[in-house]
């Protein structure tokens, strides 16, 4: 009887551990690592592997199969590290019924190398490498350089 209970508990622990290991995106990705699958997602935005923007926030979008887990990595100079959520955990997103994923990412000025890692429940994964270049800093600097003349120009728009 005791053995049976222990067996059941072990099976339960095994199942739980196995399910947790699904979608476990690695803590780092080496540069140049290759995909084991190619049809999990299609990146829609950016529509080319290399693009530029003037803002430090950018949305990466795509379509894929329901249940596929997405994690976005950024290159830190030696390897790719995953985006973290507010609690500090690796930020992952699972594609739902819409078949769409949409993630906003923070960029630094200059070149940003991104890797979108999509993983299926069988463990196969697809890596999509993107380069997004921020060509100009925020328009904030332009705003702060407004002269007094500009303030009168904006009359009616300011408090």
């Amino acid at each position, binding site marked *: 009887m005791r053995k049976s209970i222990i067996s059941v508990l072990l099976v339960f622990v095994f199942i739980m551990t196995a399910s947790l290991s699904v979608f476990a995106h690695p803590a780092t990705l080496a540069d140049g690592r290759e995909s084991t699958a190619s049809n999990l997602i299609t990146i*829609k*935005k950016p*529509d080319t592997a290399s693009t530029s*923007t*003037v*803002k*430090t*926030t950018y*949305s990466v*979008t*795509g*379509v894929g*199969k*329901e249940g596929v887990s997405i994690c976005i990595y950024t290159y830190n100079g030696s390897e790719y590290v995953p985006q973290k959520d507010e609690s500090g955990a690796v930020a992952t*997103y699972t594609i*739902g*019924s*819409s*078949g*769409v*994923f*949409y*993630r*906003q990412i923070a960029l630094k000025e200059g070149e940003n190398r991104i890797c979108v890692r999509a993983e299926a429940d069988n463990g196969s994964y697809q890596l999509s490498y993107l380069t997004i270049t921020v060509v100009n800093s*925020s*328009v*904030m600097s*332009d*705003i702060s350089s*407004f002269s007094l003349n*500009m303030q009168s*120009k*904006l*009359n*009616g*728009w300011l*408090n």
Partner: protein
Amino acid sequence: MFKEKVKTSIIIVLIINLVFLTYHSWFKSGILGSDWPYFSLSDLPVARLFQRNSFVSVPKENLSKPRKIVVNDGELWVPYYNSDDAFDRLDENVEVVMKCLLDKGAKEEEKINYTEWINLLTQKSVYVEYPITFEPRMLAMVLNADFEKLPSGISVINDVIIIPTEEDNRVQVAVRDAVTNEAYTFIVEDDTISFPQEVLAMYTDKYSRDGYYEFAFNTLIGEGLGENKIKVSDLVLFSDNESVYRDIKGTNPLTGKGHEKLLETFSFNPKPLRYYPDAFGADNYVENYATVTIFPDGYIEYSAVDQEKGIDLDVGGENEYELLNRAIDFAEKVWASVSNEPLEVLVSGIERTEEGNRFVLDYYYGGREIAVEISKEGREKLYHAIEIETKGNKIVLYRQYLRSYTEADTATSQESFMLALDYFVGQFASEYGVITDLYPGYFDSGSEEDILKTTWLCEKNNSEERYPKR
């Protein structure tokens, strides 16, 4: 002698102080804080008669206000709703442009297709969406402009794009016909216009640190959502933001009150009235040509049995705008018979029926819509706070879910946009159609639970029904 003068001065100061404080405690009480526990003259019923003079009609004020204004500085989109601090400032400047467009006429015109129109949204621009689809003449009336005419075949307007130019008093306005999707661009120039390009960055920068919004067309996902038949409209706003909103509490303002005042607004004389309760717990009042039914949960219905003898709105000729104004006046009269608070609703639909007009109004709280869906035995389903049907100049059907909303002590975190999209696509996966809008709001199903938590509301195929994420 000097001592006498000092005493006199102190007494004068004290008397002035006394008069000042008495005035505030009787009439204002604001200076003493909102928790001033004593009597105030403004609490007297008779005082309310005088206060009415300064009464502002919220639904009439809201009629000319856009449902949302989306600012793009060339890269980021930021939506502003009625509750946002900067909304009114934006709206004032938008209104000037719209008045000039309708009033003084446009100077140039170019016909563009839908793709060209929507691509204008990627430029430095301001997208303006009205809560209802207006005929140009009616929009002019709502904006208090002398309507000349739009030099094109635009029949109805729901949204426009304003594009500032190098000159501050000159803008390009791209107007889309809400029925045909054909669009026209106009150059509007006037000294009253002040729309510098630089101002747009101010309005997007405020939100850029919290993430931003993006029209569906710009996500490049396309209309199709995988193998699902349902599609998503180009103008749905995607976001990655997760905010916390206060819960709200709904109460029936008629609870514990008699029905006499309410009946009088429908011109029912409470004295010789025929009355009977029904199996659904409703009180039914009958007069020769009409009935009024009052349910315990706050649902009320007036129905003219003889369609020629409804409630006369006293409108001369066929003036739809005047009819709408009078219908709003009537709704406010009904509300005033049960509550002392202003009626916080906005007109969300105007429809021409075979026999007349149908106006629908919805509650909102903190600038966010409260979708109502009351589906109970013994009554027709109600999708709005108020539904008014007119025939000629008379109201023949009036239905309202009487609710007064206040902020609750609790708050709820809004689920992400993508979770909501997944939910609704899952719901409508097998249907051909388009999700035309998806936005945060509240949903009141008339259940016993009076606390309403923030949720997502979905509109499909431009129909007036709002689907909540349950």
